[in-house]
Each structure stands twice: as structure tokens, then as C-alpha cells.
């Protein structure tokens, strides 16, 4: 059942890629990601799942660059959630293989990720609204620098959290 969830996430990622762009290059990248995800599922390898997730991500960015369409926050958030679900499901598959599973392990995992999905949707909408409001007041030349600084800042915050937790 956990494997089905992981497989469904991988298929959803390919479908989202296909929805973003119909080009052959993106499809091939998506299929490579799918193959890597299948390997991760079969062998229970976390590194393969991470590599598949990065490959899907590269395909998605490629699709965005090729299409140059309007921003679709719903698709992007769904893509992010599907990536997370893929990673978590492969992780759980590796742990559950060759083990006795007692209690509603899968049900509770899915419930947690559903709550997280709803929270992400809310946070995403809020972030987009804030960004749209702030975009009008900022000079266009400072945007790339701000984006880079924001990215670096978020990575530093996460690193600090890791240091504290680990």
C-alpha cells in the first residue's frame, strides 16, 4: 500500500510535467525521473528517490523556461507536495520492507501529509499575495538580488534549524 502511494506520487509528477509543457525533452526528463523512482521503490534506496525528485525538479524548471506561461501557484504547490510525498513514501517503504507493520501506520502518515498539504496551500497563497503586493513597490533592478538573498536566507535559516535539531 505504501508502494502504491509512492508510485502514485511519481506518476502525478510526470502528469504535472506533461501539464506544464508538451515538449519531448521535458517528457524524457520526466520518464527518466519515473525510472529512477521505480528503482528507488524496488530497492528501497533513498538516494535514488532524492535523485528522482531532483530530476523531476529540473524537468519542471525546464518546462517553465520553455513555455514562459503565466504563474500557476496551484500546479507548483502540488508539484512540491508530490515531491515530498515521493520522498516520504520511499523512506517508509524502505523501513517497512521485511518488517511486521502494526497499527494504522499508512493511514496516519497520509493524514499528516494531507494536513501539511492544506497548510502549504494556505502558505503558498499568502506568499503569492504578499509577493504580488511587494512587487509593485520594489525597483525591478533589485529583484534578482532580492530573490537570491531570499533563497540564501531560507537555506541559512534551515541550516540553523538543522544545527539546533541535530
Amino acid at each position, binding site marked *: 500500500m505504501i508502494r502504491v502511494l509512492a508510485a502514485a506520487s511519481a506518476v502525478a509528477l510526470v502528469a504535472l510535467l506533461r501539464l506544464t509543457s508538451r515538449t519531448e525533452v521535458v517528457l524524457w526528463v520526466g520518464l527518466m525521473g519515473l525510472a529512477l523512482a521505480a528503482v528507488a521503490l524496488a530497492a528501497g534506496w533513498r538516494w535514488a528517490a532524492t535523485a528522482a525528485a531532483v530530476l523531476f525538479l529540473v524537468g519542471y524548471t525546464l518546462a517553465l523556461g520553455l513555455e514562459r506561461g503565466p504563474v500557476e501557484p496551484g500546479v507548483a504547490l502540488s508539484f512540491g507536495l508530490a515531491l515530498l510525498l515521493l520522498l516520504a513514501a520511499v*523512506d517508509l517503504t524502505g523501513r517497512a520492507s521485511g518488517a511486521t507493520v502494526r497499527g494504522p501506520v499508512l493511514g496516519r502518515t497520509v493524514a499528516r501529509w494531507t494536513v501539511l498539504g492544506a497548510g502549504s496551500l494556505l502558505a503558498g497563497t499568502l506568499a503569492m499575495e504578499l509577493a504580488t503586493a511587494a512587487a509593485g513597490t520594489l525597483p525591478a533592478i533589485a529583484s534578482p538580488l532580492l530573490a537570491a538573498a531570499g533563497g540564501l536566507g531560507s537555506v541559512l535559516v534551515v541550516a540553523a534549524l538543522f544545527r539546533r535539531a*541535530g
Partner: protein
Amino acid sequence: MSGRLTPLALSILAVAAWAISLGVLAARPEPFLVALPGLLVLATLARRAPVPRCVVAHRISGDRLFEGETATVTVTVSADSPVALVELLGPLPPGAQLGSGHHRALMTLRAGDVVEWSYELRFPRRGVHDLGTIAVRMRDRLGLRTWEHRYVDSITVRVYPRIVPLRSLPRPFHTQPSVGDYVASALGEGIEPGDIRQFAPGDRIKHVNWRASLRLGRLHVTQRHLERNADVVLMLDTLAEVGAPPGTTLDHSVRAAASLATAYLARKDRVGLITYGGVMSWVRPASGATQYERLADGLLRAEIVFTYVAKDLLRVPPRVLSPQALVVAITPLLDHRFAKAVLDLAARGFDLVVLVVSPVEVTRAALAGSPTDDLACRLWALERRAELAELRRHGLPVLEWRPPEPLEAALVGVRRRRVRLASAG
């Protein structure tokens, strides 16, 4: 109990970092949104999560088994606080196999939940196995943090060698003073009738032989042979072995030694043990059920310890290796030092029987069975036949046991004189 980050958290971090980098490079907001759920998940690390608490206990269905038997391990987990995911790794010692179920378990627990899980372990080989440690790994709700702990309890399982009932046993030449099953040549209290002699004052009326008395016209009594026990010393070769566990020559030798010990102890004999190898150890001859425990413990620990040094049997105290004892040397005869030790014992006048566990059959069973292997085994068998003939030329009774044929089949071949033993004490 200290917590640490899981590989899943690192994977999420890697993917989020990639998404942010690609967003900056492509100058698109979507990759940032892709990273958002991951960053939200990682943001939960800011909260100090309470350490989940659960108590683990386990029990074993039996702590004394014979080779090939199974034991059920039952693990009970009771949660003091909610545990989102607990991963348990039950004991699976080297040499044991899973009979049924899994030795790993994954469960979700609410506060107050008590969950029991069990699995079966099969022990194909003798030994003392430690089943006292259970590794517990608890994770937080999103699987980002983990806490590990080991529950250690002193639980061991002793797996004794398989025993086969034996009827044909090499008969000792000498007996000891204690009562046993061997008919001695000396006369006294016993069951087996011996000589007839004239009645003398002090003789019991129940010993009067009435038929002889009537025929000879005087009172005669029947004398009886004493029934004595003997000292048997099992000498186990632990210098070298061939084959794959649990069917190595040493495994077969240990099973043979255990079966012989049981059979001799059942005859009220005093049985001792010498393991002759890199490490030499011994058990003093004694009789009774407790002695079987001592011998079995000695056999459990028997293992090959390589050495260049040839051990001298003179180191063994005379109380262990008495000149009156029957020595049963159990060996695959792979190391010439053991053959030398056996010849030395024979030269010193010990009553000796050599039980040779054929390494050819054991090796053949471990090989794939190609024509080359078969040819090599046949040549080896020829060489060994010559070696055994050499030992027999020295006057040693050599019995060859080719597992998996029954041990009884090898012992039936022993042709020893039924000697009315002179030494009755």
C-alpha cells in the same frame, strides 16, 4: 536518549535547496513555491519536540534447545506517550534463522497502547546465542527527527547438539569400582552367574544352588560377577574442520560426542571430555545428569582455534585422562598432530577407539557437484583410505563415519572382544 535528524530530512533539504537554486537561475517564482512545502516541513524542526517514551520488554519461549529447534521471541511495547512511528529491531543472532515472521517491526502507538509482536527463530547450529538486545528507533510526526535506544536484557539461548540414540558402543577394557552395567571378571554381588563353589559360613541361603547341591551331596553356592562402570574420555579434534555450517566436520564430531556421552552416561559410566586444538580444555569424568550439562557446555564452546603449536597430552591431569579410561578420539584426521597424539596415547597403553568423521563426504555435500569435484573427492577418499590403513596397522581400532549415514552404522563395525574385566575396582 538524544535525537538526531533522519536521512529523510536531509533529502527534503537537498530538494528544497535545488528548487530555490533553480528558481533563482530560471528567474521564475514556481520553483520557490515547489520548495515551500519542504521548507514548511523543515520549519517544524524549530519546535522542541518532546522525546517519545515507550517501554520494551521481551521473552523467549525456551532458553535450552536442540539444534534445528525453534524458539518464539515475543516483544511487548507499551507507550507512555504518543509515538508517531516506532521501529523495533529484535534479536537475530548470527547462526540463527528466521522461522516465521520478521525480526523488525514498525508501529504507530497512542499513549497507553500495549502492542505485542512475535517471531520465530530457528537455530540450526549449536552455540550460546545472545538474544538480549532490542534496538528501538522512534520518529517524530513527520519523520524528520529520530531517537534511538537499546533495551538490553540478559537473555541467552543455549542450543545443544542433536543427539541420536546409540545401541552399539565401543566397550571399555577396564572398569572402575562403582556400580555400572559392565560384567566384571571379579566375583561378588551381581546378576550374572559366575562360578559354583562349596558353601562356606557367611554365605547367604538365597545363593545356594540347589540343583548342584543335590547332585554333589553337599551344599554349593552360585557366585556372581560384579557389575561395574567404566571411565570414558571423549577426545574431540578441534584443530581443523571442513564443510559449510551447520554441517562441518566439527559439527558432526560434536553431535557424535554428545550422542556417545548420552549413551555412556545412560550406562552409569563416568564420562569426560578433552577438546584438543588451539585451545585445549577438558571436563573431568563423572556420571549423572549434571555431568551431561557440563559436557554439553564444553561441547557448545568447541570451536576451531588455529595454532602452530602441537599440544602435549601430558598437560591433561591424570584425573581427567586416567590410564584405566576408554578414550574415544573423534576426528576428521585433517591435522597430522591429532593422529600423532592418538598414536602417542596408544603407545602409552591407553584403551583407544578412533572415530573418524569422513571429511570427504562433508566436503562433497558443500560443493556444487561438478565432475572435477567428484574426481577430486574420489582421489581424496583413496588417500584417506591409505591413511586409515596406516593407523590400523598400528593396532588402533578405527571406525569411519560418513555423514549423513547414521552414526550407529559406523559404531556397529567395532569388533572388540567382550572381555571379562579383571579389574573390578
